[in-house]
C-alpha cells in the first residue's frame, strides 16, 4: 500500500489503517520531539499531538512529499511552538513572581533532586543539560538542520525536504551548527 492510499484510508476513519500509520512512524516522531524538547514526558505528549494533527488532516496529504517528511515537518513545527510557549510561560511566571503574584512557584520548581538522589545521576543530568542547552542555544534553522541530520540520521536531501530549503543551504546550516556547538561546548568545558 502506498503512503497516499494509507492516508486515504486513515482519512476515511479506518481503524486498522490508523494503527498501521501510527505504528510505522511513532518511534521516529517521538525521537524527533525528544531531540527538540529533551524531556520524555513532553516528547510523548507532543508525539501524540503530532499524530492527532496528522490524522485530522489526513485528507490534505497529497503525496507530493514522502509521508515521513510530512510528519517530520509537523513534528518540528509543533516542537518549536512548544518551546516558544514554554519560554513565554516562563517569562510570564517570572513577571508574576517579580510583581508578587506567584503563589505556587515552590511546587513547580521542586524537581527530581530530592536529598536521596545519587551523585552520579545528578552529574549525568548536568552533562545532559549542558549539551541540551548548547544545542538549544543555536539559531533555530541551524538547530533544526543539526537535529534532523545528526541526531535523527536524516540525509541532507530529507532535511532539505522537511525544511523546504535547498541542499546547499542545509549543508551550510549544518556546518555552522557544528562550529557553533563546538564553540559553545568548549567554552563550558574549558572554563
Amino acid at each position: 500500500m502506498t503512503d497516499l492510499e494509507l492516508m486515504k484510508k486513515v482519512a476515511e476513519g479506518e481503524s486498522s489503517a490508523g494503527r498501521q500509520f501510527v505504528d510505522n512512524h511513532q518511534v521516529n516522531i517521538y525521537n524527533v520531539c525528544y531531540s527538540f524538547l529533551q524531556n520524555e514526558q513532553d516528547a510523548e505528549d507532543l508525539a501524540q499531538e503530532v499524530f492527532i494533527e496528522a490524522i485530522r488532516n489526513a485528507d490534505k496529504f497529497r503525496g507530493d512529499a514522502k509521508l515521513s517528511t510530512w510528519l517530520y515537518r509537523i513534528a518540528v513545527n509543533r516542537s518549536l511552538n512548544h518551546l516558544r510557549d514554554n519560554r513565554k510561560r516562563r517569562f510570564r511566571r517570572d513577571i508574576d513572581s517579580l510583581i508578587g503574584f506567584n503563589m505556587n512557584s515552590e511546587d513547580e520548581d521542586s524537581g527530581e533532586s530530592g536529598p536521596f538522589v545519587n551523585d552520579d545521576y545528578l552529574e549525568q543530568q548536568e552533562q545532559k543539560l549542558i549539551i541540551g542547552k548548547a544545542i538549544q542555544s543555536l539559531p533555530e534553522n541551524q538547530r533544526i538542520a543539526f537535529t534532523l541530520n545528526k541526531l535523527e540520521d536524516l540525509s541532507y536531501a530529507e532535511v532539505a525536504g522537511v525544511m523546504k530549503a535547498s541542499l546547499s543551504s542545509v549543508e551550510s546550516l549544518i556546518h555552522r551548527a557544528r562550529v557553533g556547538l563546538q564553540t559553545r561546548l568548549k567554552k563550558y568545558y574549558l572554563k
Partner: protein
Amino acid sequence: MTKLRVKPENDTNMKCREAELQIIDFLAQRPSAGMPAELAGHLVSCSSCSALLKEYSAGFNTLASGRRKVADPTFYDRLTINMQVKTNSHLTTSKPVVRILHLRPLFIAVAASLILGIWLGGRLFNVVQPDSGDENTLSGQQRVALLDAYASDLHLNDDATLALENYLIDFETPGTNDTK
C-alpha cells in the same frame, strides 16, 4: 635572506579543530555506527581531544538515553482515547473565554484604556460644543420675533436693498436666472 618557518603547533591545532567537530558528529550520531578511522588515529596521539571525547560522551549518552528504539504497543490506544477527549473538550469548552482569561492583564489594560478614552472623549466634546439646549424651548412667537430682528440687522427692508432687488428682477435673463 629570511627563512619562512611554519609553526608545528599550528598544524596540530587545525587537526584538533577538525577532530572536535568529528567528535560532536560521532557522539550525536550515536557511537553504534563506529568511530571513523581518522578520528580514532588522532585520539591515540592527542590527549586533549580524547579527554574532550570523554567529557562530551557522558552528556550525549544521557541525552540519547531518553530515545526510543522500539514502538510502544499502547501508543495507538492512548492516542485514540486522547483524540476522543480532545474532541469532547473542544465541544464543551469555549476557547475565546479561556484565551481572554489567559491574557487577563492585557485584557484589563485594553478595557481600562477604552473606558478612559470614552470618558475623556465625552469631556472634550462638551468643551468644544457648549450647551445649546434652550434653542428647542423657544415658542413660535419668540422665533418669529428673533427672525425679524435678524432681518432688520441685515437691513433687508430698507430702500437701497429693495431698489437693488427690483433692478435685478427687471434685468433677469429668463432661461438662466442671471442678470443681463
